[in-house]
């Protein structure tokens, strides 16, 4: 599933499809950091829609009671697919929900990069030194469609989208600030865009050349060690693919899985 990446090395839990389930996870992980006395906190991201889920309420409540070092970062972009925030909740945004649970909360202009940086930096400091949760509601706007198969002009006015795109574009605002300080210009912009594009194209080329995952990959990582029934299933599948090659695509590498 796209966007469901994760990295142990980068301290990034795998993104899940189930909305807001990551919030209790964030609190649990924060509790673990607290028990270990680590100089670190957890940050959990979610949207305006996510604040409706039961898991959001459980997470905030627990974070407050357990005094867990966690930052709840809500990107309130006004839309959950076609559901506007006014159909999502009738509270004054998400910031009051944090306060209701006894979590110190702040509302920030989500399109102001400097304000966001400042808020998150302070939040991290507070979360770690005071061992308490913080909620940041970043108010912004979803300029794009929900996915590539959505046409959001069907449920909201084009003028509204265009206004945010033009007037409150965070990239434009930040660039203007950099330029006004003499740290950026059109040449630098053009060069950055060109280099990024080249990097992306190269990455695509590299990815396209990578061999498709082998049959064995299907059976690994279900458990820590491959259990005997999966070892048998994998063997059976390999034999079947070898015996009936006409029924299977040719780009399926058939390699053995190491036995446990």
């Amino acid at each position, binding site marked *: *599933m796209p966007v*469901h990446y994760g990295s142990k090395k980068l301290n990034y839990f795998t993104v*899940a*499809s*189930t*909305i*807001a*389930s990551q919030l209790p996870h964030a609190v649990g992980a924060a509790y673990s950091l607290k028990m270990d006395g680590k100089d670190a906190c957890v940050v959990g991201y979610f949207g305006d*829609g*996510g604040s*409706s*889920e*039961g898991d959001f309420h459980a997470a905030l409540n627990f974070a407050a009671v357990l005094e867990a070092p966690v930052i709840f970062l809500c990107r309130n972009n006004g839309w*959950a*697919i*076609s*559901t506007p925030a006014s*159909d*999502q*909740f009738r509270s004054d945004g998400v910031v009051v929900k944090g306060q209701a649970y006894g979590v110190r909360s702040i509302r920030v202009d989500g399109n102001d990069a400097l304000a966001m940086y400042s808020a998150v930096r302070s939040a991290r400091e507070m979360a770690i030194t005071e061992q308490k949760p913080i909620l940041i509601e970043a108010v912004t706007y979803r300029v794009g469609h929900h996915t590539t198969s959505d046409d959001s002009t*069907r*449920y909201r006015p084009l003028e509204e989208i265009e206004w945010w795109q033009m007037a409150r574009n965070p990239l434009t605002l930040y660039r203007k600030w950099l330029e006004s300080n003499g740290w950026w210009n059109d040449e630098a912009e053009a060069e950055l865009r060109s280099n990024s594009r080249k990097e992306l194209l190269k990455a695509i080329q590299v990815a396209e050349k990578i061999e*498709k*995952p082998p*049959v064995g*990959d*299907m*059976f690994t990582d*279900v458990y820590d060690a491959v259990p005997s*029934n*999966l070892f048998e*299933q994998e063997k*059976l*599948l390999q*034999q*079947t693919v070898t*015996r*009936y090659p006409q*029924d*299977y*695509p040719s*780009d*399926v590498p058939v390699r053995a899985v190491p036995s446990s």
Partner: protein
Amino acid sequence: MWGIVGQRACRHGSSAMSLQVTRPVIHALRSFSTAAKEMTVRDALNSAIDEEMSADPKVFLMGEEVGEYQGAYKITKGLLEKYGPDRVLDTPITEAGFTGIGVGAAYHGLKPIVEFMTFNFSMQAIDHIINSAAKSNYMSAGQISVPIVFRGPNGAAAGVGAQHSQCYAPWFASCPGLKVLAPYSSEDARGLMKAAIRDPDPVVFLENELLYGESFPVSAEVLDSSFCLPIGKAKIEREGKDVTITAFSKMVGYALKAAEILSKEGISAEVINLRSIRPLDRATINNSVRKTNRLVTVEEGFPQHGIGAEICASVVEDSFEYLDAAIERIAGADVPMPYAANLERLAVPQVEDIVRAAKRTCYRSSSLAATA
């Protein structure tokens, strides 16, 4: 790769009733005595819900994106416009919340149709489905019935990964108090949806995302607003005498394709479309096996404790002496659904797997274990 496209031989078309063109209009000339119209499963569901909402003001719809967005898969298209926001509710994102609210409304006499964007998300609400909906009639000694329908796409789609591809038929079908339906064709979709809405008990209605765009012929009888199919009756989609193949939902199409291939090799397969997972039509299944003496069960979900397991048990209990060969169970791989497209294809049953299993029951082919 996806057998769906070819499963109906050369027929493509869009019915005059369809609200949006989903395929180019290419009509094959074929004369059926009764079936002149074609309808997609999507339109079948939409029309069934529409007709029942029109007939009974207590019926209302609830779910994420069912109204303004016309439904995440466009099943509820046009209904908000027709019935208004009091009867078509776009809910906030909380499955546990809106399921609980639906059950509460049903307790008090309304007839909610609760949509899960996919049944994978029903797990966030499963306490309300099982403990509140399924058990209330029993626990109240028959005083509080729960005439609710839980519907949405179930099982594997295409390239949606582990958290979007599980089949929940075994989970819900193991619970007394629930009825569990799984339509295949447009006729199934219309008849079973109407039956589900009219039923006084909680019904779990398992659709399939990949079948929504499929077209099937529908007779005038099916198109009538009073049309209804009985809950608990399977349908024999294709008669045969050598081996029984049971399937539900998308796998019915695969089983039919397999039966076609088998017939060319001299094996006549009887394909049973279960339609109803709970109650399971044990009579039809057993009668068929008593006739053919061989059985292959097909499902897309995980093998352990699956629908095939229950069917095997039923046949062994009731028709043991009639079996001439061991029962074959075809199921998905015992792993979370892989995302890599080549592995995903290997993790779900394909038509060839069904053909090979049927041949094994007919002794036309030995299992790999036997030849090892």
